[in-house]
């Protein structure tokens, strides 16, 4: 392993794989905040040059947090198929990048390789990819998952209906569910971020969504994004219907502690839904992630936000989730400064998730203290669909009144499906036609009229 190179005759020497990995990142305000970013544009390229010569074995042997100290590292390392790892371990990161992009490397070959990759290997190759590389390589990889329906099939593109409300008002939430469905949102999941995190309230919302779904025979799945133990308790105490369990996760044990979650809690939640939940499965977990969360809880162990994010996916993979999405622009400008950095992060996260082998979506979003606007987020959503992303979010006109940020609106998934010739999940597509909201994959004039659900 060589950690030294020359650029324009100037010597750049790095002390560790950790330093190379951080400095090889594209510019991110979060890495600067952590004090680990490349100091000059040239140093960034020097780090990339050094990284390109490291082997996947070097990356596996340098986990971001030591195996003994961190259960996320243990999950990632123990889940590796050693036979497959041995096939790839002597490849340099440069060779692996070219192998992924090579015309003779098939989607199946990449899925096979995934089983031998630790998150540091996934992050490493990501750092050598341009934005179009990230789209090109991710497009090759398809990951399907099944809860009540199957997400990720070729020719489909899905969305989460996110009917959040400032006070969890049931009428307000249902109004939003109706309008979202009438525009073709919600085939991935109908998922509420609750304001009131109490077990009673979460149970009430789960029941309400389930009743609506059953009444109108909507072929989808529902979730209320409370803490995992709250969802489990809502099911156990109040008989709340759980199609899946949600949890925010981080890329280190310490980061997960900040979310109040452990690997055991996630396992218990999954077991509970598989034995007592309302869905077919077998994929019953929903995770959200986002670059920078580890640094914000001082749980990054000196590593960069791309590598820590990849480790979230390594942890998620263990539970074969139905959905994972990066909430890419939510964290603020001290981690992702502007639309350029958010776009890059969205493409990185989507690529890394897929290369890890999980069903990947993206909440393409921004807060009002970021240098980004709705045009930027429409751009990112378009790039993600080009990259074969499984799903994006849908909120009324992209304005989430509860989380106070903006993401993609109800109309975006429909427009992108038309542009790219894609459909919702098949059963949902058929349901849309039955309801008269779409015809041959195109919205009808009736789409957007939520009042059809109010027939007496």
């Amino acid at each position, binding site marked *: 392993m060589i950690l030294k190179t020359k650029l324009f005759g100037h010597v750049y020497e790095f002390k560790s794989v950790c330093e190379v990995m951080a400095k090889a990142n594209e510019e991110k*305000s979060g890495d*600067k*905040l952590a004090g680990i970013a490349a100091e000059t544009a040239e140093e960034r390229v020097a780090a990339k040059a050094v990284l390109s010569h490291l082997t996947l074995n070097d990356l596996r042997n340098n986990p971001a947090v030591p195996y003994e100290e961190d259960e996320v590292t243990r999950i990632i390392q123990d889940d590796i198929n050693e036979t497959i790892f041995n096939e790839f371990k002597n490849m340099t990161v440069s060779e692996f990048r070219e192998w992924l992009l090579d015309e003779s490397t098939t989607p199946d070959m990449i899925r096979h390789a995934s089983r031998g990759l630790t998150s540091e290997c996934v992050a490493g190759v990501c750092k050598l990819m341009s934005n179009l590389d990230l789209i090109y390589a991710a497009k090759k990889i398809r990951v399907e998952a099944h809860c009540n329906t199957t997400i990720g099939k070729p020719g489909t593109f899905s969305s989460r209906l996110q009917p959040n*409300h*400032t006070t969890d*008002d049931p*009428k*307000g*939430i*249902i*109004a*939003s569910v*109706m*309008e979202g469905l009438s*525009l073709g949102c919600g085939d991935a999941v109908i998922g509420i971020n609750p304001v009131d995190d109490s077990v009673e309230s979460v149970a009430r919302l789960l029941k309400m969504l389930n009743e609506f779904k059953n009444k109108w025979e909507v072929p989808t799945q529902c979730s209320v994004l409370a803490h995992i133990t709250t969802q489990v308790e809502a099911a156990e105490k109040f008989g709340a219907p759980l199609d899946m369990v949600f949890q925010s996760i981080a890329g280190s044990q310490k980061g997960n502690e900040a979310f109040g979650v452990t690997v055991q809690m996630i396992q218990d939640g999954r077991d509970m839904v598989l034995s007592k939940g309302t869905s077919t499965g077998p994929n019953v977990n929903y995770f959200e992630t986002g670059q920078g969360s580890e640094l914000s809880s001082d749980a990054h162990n000196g590593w960069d936000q791309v590598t820590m994010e990849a480790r979230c996916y390594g942890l998620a993979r263990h539970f074969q989730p139905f959905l994972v999405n990066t909430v890419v622009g939510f964290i*603020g*400008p*001290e981690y992702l*400064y502007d639309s350029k950095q958010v776009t890059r992060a969205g493409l990185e996260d989507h690529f890394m998730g897929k290369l890890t082998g999980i069903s990947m979506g993206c909440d393409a979003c921004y*807060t*009002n*203290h970021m240098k980004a*606007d*709705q045009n930027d987020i429409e751009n990112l959503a378009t790039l993600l669909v080009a990259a074969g992303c499984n799903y994006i979010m849908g*909120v*009324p*006109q*992209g*304005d989430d*009144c509860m989380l*106070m*940020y*903006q993401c993609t*609106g109800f*109309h975006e998934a*429909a*427009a992108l*499906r*038309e542009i790219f010739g894609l459909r919702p999940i098949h059963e949902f597509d058929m349901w849309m036609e039955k309801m008269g909201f779409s015809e041959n994959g*195109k*919205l009808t004039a009736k*789409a*957007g*009229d*939520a*009042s*059809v659900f*109010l*027939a*007496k």
Partner: protein
Amino acid sequence: MNEKDLRTIIEQVLTEMNAGAAGSAAAAPAACAKAAGQASNVEDGCIPDITEVDIRTQYLVENPEHGEEYAELKYNAPCRLGIGKAGARYKTLPQLEFRAAHSAAQDAVFNDVDEEFVKSQGLFIVQTQCDSKDTYLTRPDLGRKLSPEGVAAIKEKCKKNPTVQIYVADGLSSASVAANIPDLLPAILQGLQNYKIDVGTPFFVKYGRVGVMDEISELTGAEVTCTLIGERPGLITAESMSAYIAYKATVGMPEARRTVVSNIHRSGTIPAEAGAHIADIIKIMLEKKASGTDLKL
């Protein structure tokens, strides 16, 4: 239009441009209109203010099946619902409404509070270690520390060891400061005066994060420190303000020791009302000698 007409127009335009010698800005639009051969028939009147539309009652879906029922239902959601569509895209009006709301949010974040306004409120200005808005947005750690000049100014100008120290910070919304402080600050001061509680010298912190209150508390030696700070704008309002209040705040103390009064703006808790409420909280805090989760209100 033939060549002659065109030449006439161009000559006319040139003459007018010369007439407005130093490049009169007013001449330019007129010239554009004439060059394009349009009659510039500017009518009197004003296009309605799109920001005055109440999104709860706005309903743009054409020929809805059960429109009345849905209009009633959607009134329960402060969201952009019932907005119809143009193909699989948005209609123009809601698109403009959204952009208007976001423009207010961006202006609130990225513009500085007007210094003349601050002075008119009787406040002097100190700055944190952030040298620009960019630094402020990307370095939260520097927004929690005062500049050396700021420390000196507070030492020089502020009353020592007051019972209560109040100060204003821009936080993430300059619009919030301009909208709320003229009513909010006097209301708090009046409330405290009624309780005969001694108040220190108020001032304004530029590029301030919530945490800078800990250093200010230590510097002034105040028993209770209260910061009035602009919240990160949403699209519903860009003018929301919060008060963070702590009993004997110290640098490095847990966040849970702060008591928060949030959502202060004209469509939330109105500033005058919030001011009285904050004065009450401060009184209780002084009696119980505690704040944050240690204080049951």
